[in-house]
């Protein structure tokens, strides 16, 4: 590739839609070649941030730098940002090949490769996204997964210095989504293009990203590697949003940190009554009602341990917590 | 053949030395078609100059309005003097236009008669018969049509004579007549079509010339004309629109065009098209039925008075006619 991937810096950016603060003083630095997931519920500002980076929206204050240069002076056409949209946005009247070739064919005459070269490159990209043989079809004749791969090939055709993916797998069913997720990770490992990936699916973010940016109400809650945000959430919001969590009083406890015994064994523990047991799955899940406070607790334990305990709904049990987190309110 | 057709389609009409626009009212279409050809021949012979006359027809009041709004008529030949007065009021021609040509600038006259179905099954003889319950009368709308105003005034004139100029009784009489009119067409020609073509109504209140034309077009074996003993003398006037004709350089030709209406040939063509010629000698050659004719001056004190009293907004017609 002739264009090197770039680093992106977002410095104190704010953006409002009417009275609604979509982004509130957001700062973020993306290293060259990394894959970053913007994760958050809808309305958290993640898509707005992506569109600002791509130049589809203008911020009210703050600045964005591409490789140190102020992006305000770089038009959308010059940003060389490859977009992939949730609903593909393929050109419906063009064949798959023409879709992929579009970015090259609209270049100014001086910079435009010859027709044969454009076609060769488009075919090469379709090969890269494993879509040989569908060149002549129209987008409507492809499955959702195929369409999104065409969209990716189309974005890659302009040799982007950054890839911006807006909920790219949001419209696909669960199985295809998982496959494409892994495939995208592998592709990224090959191409190493700086990539920003918007999703509201924490599992997706944790699985695919080098770093996860957790967003809430227009602000960044935490930035970190997947394991880091899971194990060391910086706020109650992150803790709640990523993985399951029990809240007992002001304490946050992951279900797999709940330890259960059927007999009091001397160590301090809480009394509870088993309400529900589910053993279908890799781990067994148990719901318990704490005596006294009446709070419901979800627990995850290895199936072997569950078999050992042999607890049924209505049985008395005793719980301890391996790890407990609290956050300043 | 096809090529020939296309050539015709895009060929530009040859330029003429003089081109006049005659803005006229509805029932004169056939008359002016014939007269224009005769005048062009006469002008060529007298002046050695080609003249082409373009025609525009429509309701008399509507045509006056179009001329005021900019329709560039060299001459107007309308249904009644008031419509030309309105144009004069806007300064397009002199206020004394009626003095420019003989006979109050009305080279031919007409009157209002009844057209009935063959054999006169309802026995219509006079205006009295038109107010009978159950009689269906077809007439155009006096608000928009010149002929309609003449028809209305003819009925009023009859009532005045019958009740000795008792206005309340005349008003009641005319009101009863218009109760028998199921539909008011906007123009004289529309009413004729309603009566003759669509077969609606027992009697049509029509221009004399229009009634004769209907007889000719739709067959004398289907209709007949009933001439009442008393009716109005309708004087359709003509005038040169000075400001326009002068601007076009047509003033002389326009005046000659209207003057020739009084010539023997003009009068003959008018009579042939069922307009009563002014020239008594030519009138005598044609079988126009005799009846008592009262003119607008005698019956109503002129057109401005009649217009103001009867047809202005809120006037007598508005009071008696509720659609």
């Amino acid at each position, binding site marked *: 590739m002739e264009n090197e991937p770039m680093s992106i810096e977002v410095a104190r950016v704010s953006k409002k839609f009417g009275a609604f603060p979509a982004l509130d003083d957001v700062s973020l630095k993306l290293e060259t070649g990394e894959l970053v997931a913007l994760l958050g519920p809808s309305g958290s500002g993640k898509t707005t941030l992506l569109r600002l980076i*791509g130049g*589809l929206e203008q911020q009210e204050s703050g600045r964005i730098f591409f490789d140190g240069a102020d992006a305000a002076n770089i038009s*959308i*056409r010059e940003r*060389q*940002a*490859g*977009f992939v*949209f949730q*609903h593909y*946005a*393929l*050109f*419906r*009247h063009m064949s798959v090949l023409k879709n992929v070739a*579009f*970015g090259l064919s*609209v*270049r100014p005459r001086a910079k435009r490769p010859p027709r044969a070269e454009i076609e060769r490159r488009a075919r090469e990209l379709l090969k890269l996204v494993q879509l040989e043989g569908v060149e002549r079809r129209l987008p409507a004749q492809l499955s959702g997964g195929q369409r999104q791969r065409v*969209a990716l090939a*189309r*974005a890659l*055709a*302009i040799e982007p210095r950054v890839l911006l993916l807006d909920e790219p797998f949001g419209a696909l069913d669960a199985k295809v989504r998982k496959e494409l997720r892994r495939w995208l990770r592998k592709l990224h490992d090959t191409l190493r293009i700086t990539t920003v990936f918007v999703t509201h699916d924490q599992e997706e973010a944790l699985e695919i990203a080098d770093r996860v940016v957790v967003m809430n109400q227009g602000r960044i809650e935490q930035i970190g590697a997947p394991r880091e945000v899971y194990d060391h959430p910086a706020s109650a919001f992150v803790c709640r949003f990523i993985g399951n969590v029990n809240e007992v009083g002001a304490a946050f406890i992951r279900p797999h940190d709940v330890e259960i015994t059927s007999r009091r064994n001397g160590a301090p523990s809480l009394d509870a009554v088993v309400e529900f047991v589910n053993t279908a799955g890799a781990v067994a899940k148990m719901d318990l009602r704490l005596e006294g406070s009446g709070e419901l607790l979800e627990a995850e334990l290895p199936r072997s341990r569950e078999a050992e305990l042999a607890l049924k709904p209505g049985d008395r049990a005793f719980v301890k917590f391996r790890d407990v987190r609290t956050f300043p309110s | 053949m096809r090529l020939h*057709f296309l050539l*015709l*389609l*895009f060929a530009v*009409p040859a330029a003429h030395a003089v081109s006049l*626009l005659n*803005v006229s009212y*509805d029932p004169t*279409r*056939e008359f002016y078609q014939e007269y224009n050809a005769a005048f062009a021949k006469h002008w060529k012979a007298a002046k050695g100059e080609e003249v082409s006359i*373009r*025609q*525009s*027809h*429509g309701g008399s009041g509507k045509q006056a309005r*179009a001329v*005021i*709004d*900019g*329709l*560039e008529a060299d001459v107007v030949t309308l249904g009644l003097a008031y419509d030309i007065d309105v144009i004069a009021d*806007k300064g397009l021609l002199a206020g004394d236009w009626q003095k420019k040509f003989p006979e109050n600038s009305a080279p031919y006259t007409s009157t209002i008669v009844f057209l009935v179905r063959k054999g006169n099954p309802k026995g219509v003889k006079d205006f009295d018969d038109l107010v009978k319950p159950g009689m269906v009368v077809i007439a155009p709308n006096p608000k928009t049509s010149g002929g309609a105003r003449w028809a209305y005034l003819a009925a009023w004139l009859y009532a005045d004579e019958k009740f000795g100029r008792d206005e309340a009784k005349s008003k009641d009489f005319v009101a009863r007549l218009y109760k028998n009119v199921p539909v008011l067409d906007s123009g004289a*020609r*529309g009413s004729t*079509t309603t009566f003759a073509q669509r077969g609606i109504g027992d009697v049509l209140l029509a221009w004399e010339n229009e009634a004769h*034309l209907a007889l000719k*077009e*739709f067959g004398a074996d289907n209709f007949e004309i009933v001439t009442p003993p008393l009716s109005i003398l309708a004087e359709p006037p003509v005038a040169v629109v000075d400001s326009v004709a002068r601007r076009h350089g047509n003033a002389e030709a326009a005046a000659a065009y209207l003057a020739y209406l009084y010539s023997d040939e003009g009068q003959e063509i008018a009579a042939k098209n069922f307009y009563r010629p002014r020239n008594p000698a030519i009138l005598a050659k044609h079988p126009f039925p005799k009846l008592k004719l009262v003119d607008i001056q005698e019956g109503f004190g002129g057109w401005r008075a009649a217009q103001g009293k009867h047809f202005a907004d809120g006037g007598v017609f508005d009071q008696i006619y509720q659609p």
Partner: protein
Amino acid sequence: MIRRLFLIGAALAFLVLFLFVPLAAIFAEAFRRGAGAYFASFRDPDALSAIRLTLLAAAIAVPLNLVFGVAAAWAIAKFDFAGKSLLTSLIDLPFAVSPVVSGLIYVLLFGAQSWLGPWLSAHHIKIIFAVPGIVLATLFVTFPFVARELIPLMQSQGRDEEIAAVSLGASGWQTFLRVTLPNVKWGLLYGVILCNARAMGEFGAVSVVSGHIRGETTTLPLHVEILYNEYNFVAAFAVASLLALLALVTLGLKSFVEWRMNP
């Protein structure tokens, strides 16, 4: 089953009664005195002039409304700007007002009694009761067709493809020509067909500004009225049959385009 047959029967009967019978009547009247009289009607200089004027008005109004309609629909469907809802309502204006009123608007604007009147007259510019007025009136009444057809179509397609095109480096013009326009081409053709049918068939607005000068400012529909008023029924129906043919061609094209739009 019986109910469905009844409904189909009712629809067919309606079609026959209100479409085929009048159409047949037009042609029957037009050929009443034989093919010779029928074709003679079109050799009359006034009829030729009416055909010429009708073609001229359509040839000017349709392309202008095509360009305007596409531009307006594009602006309304793909961008947000102040006054957008006002523009949308303005486009509908010719549909909302009676054609006669549309004509009167021009009389009030350009008539001799309007404030522009003296200036126009001084500069020998004729608008109403002349060809320009007829073209303007035609332009006005046919103005919504293309835009009205395109706006919902463009709105339903959203802006995603345009945004994608721009992000891929296309200029605004390239985006329009290569993405927006091809996506709406059948809808556009549909709008143009309707626009043309109305341009050639308009009566009311054109009647008001025409002045009815024979052979000069009469379009086909006005010429039909004149012939009819002159009791010249064969010629009236012969000329009307041209308009009927136009309607049939329009109907055929329209069905074809509809079929292409929803294959």
